[in-house]
């Protein structure tokens, strides 16, 4: 299979997992760049063009709370898991673990 098609399949595989990763990494307040760095340090490479709009979408869905804060002469928008987001994360994490153990037996 050529690289282009493989990358497309990888992208599909990652799409849902990224939401789980972002929700999981937002248990403490994070602004865009700090969240990206946190994910990269954890081994999840995600480009800024994907992550920043994704955080906004999750906030619009009520899964993340957001707040503008001023520090060091700059303003940043901080995101943190909302109450609904915490419940969703818990459910999605359970689903992920189930799926992961099932996949282990298949793969």
């Amino acid at each position: 299979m050529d690289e282009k098609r493989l990358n497309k399949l990888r992208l599909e595989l990652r799409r849902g997992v990224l939401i789980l990763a972002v929700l999981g990494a937002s248990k403490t307040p994070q602004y865009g760049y700090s969240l990206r760095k946190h994910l990269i340090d954890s081994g999840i490479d995600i480009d800024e063009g994907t992550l920043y709009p994704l955080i906004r979408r999750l906030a619009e869905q009520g899964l993340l709370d957001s707040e503008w804060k001023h520090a060091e002469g700059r303003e940043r928008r901080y995101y943190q898991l909302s109450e609904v987001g915490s419940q969703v994360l818990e459910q999605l994490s359970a689903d992920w673990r189930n799926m992961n153990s099932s996949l282990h037996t298949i793969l």
Partner: protein
Amino acid sequence: MDMINRYLKAVERELPEDKKVDIIRELRANLLDEIEAKTSGNPSQADNKTVAKILIENGHPQTTALQYAPLSPLVASDDMPLYKRVISHSAMVLFLFSLLMGSTHLVEQQSINVFSFLYQIVGNFVSLAAPLLIAVTWAFYYLGKHGQLSQWQSKKWSPYELPAEDVEMNSRSDSISEVITNVFGLLIMWTPLWMAPEVANKLILGFSSDMEHWRIILTVVAAISLAGAVYRLFFRYWTKLTLGAYILEYFVYIAGMLYLSTQPQLIVITNSQASDLTPILASILDYAWYIGAIILTLLVIKYIKQWRRL
């Protein structure tokens, strides 16, 4: 900084009005964070090369704007099969309508011009297709936005009601051509209702006085045939009853054609200047009734074989 401002302005131009301020504010903060990380905490010291690299990584302004504020599709991918079906059915009805309009225009002409006829059909079709496309797309957008389409598409169905594997289906093109023929026939039979008398008087061909007697009978037959054709367009599986009724309809036509071939002609030359064409027309119509009856008989044989298989 100038490059960042130009980038942000380019993104802003692509964003919806109500989201511009908030998205640009956040995008600016994110870009400054990225630059800060690359310049050891001093974004104002960043050279153009570093800024350009970060902006390229961030994406083309148009792409970035779309990622932040994605456009909702006019027709959702789930609704696409239904959308295509509605468009194709509407296009068929439109074509039928255009053909009828072109045909009535042809009847009103004193001479037959094939190019003018085709131009009428294509012109009518194109002028009606654009508003139709917009109307159907808008309806799908509106219904899709309010979740009514997904609700309708997920309606309950029963596997017991599925047709048999070897079910006989009627031909859609046959049904369409029957709709066209019957509507055209009705329009021709009732020309006094829609054609101005001065235009009718100029026509070479017209109906004989016997038509007054036949008009009601032929109208009833054409109306029943039209209703059957429209029904078959929507219910495409043959049953013993529907195919039987269809065969009966053909028998009525065959009997009618054979009877009419023995009667004085219903279509006559009405223009005195073309009266020498009368015998030619009479022989053409005689043959036309016979040929029509033979063709319908062959079709009846085919349908009877099909009926026995049901």
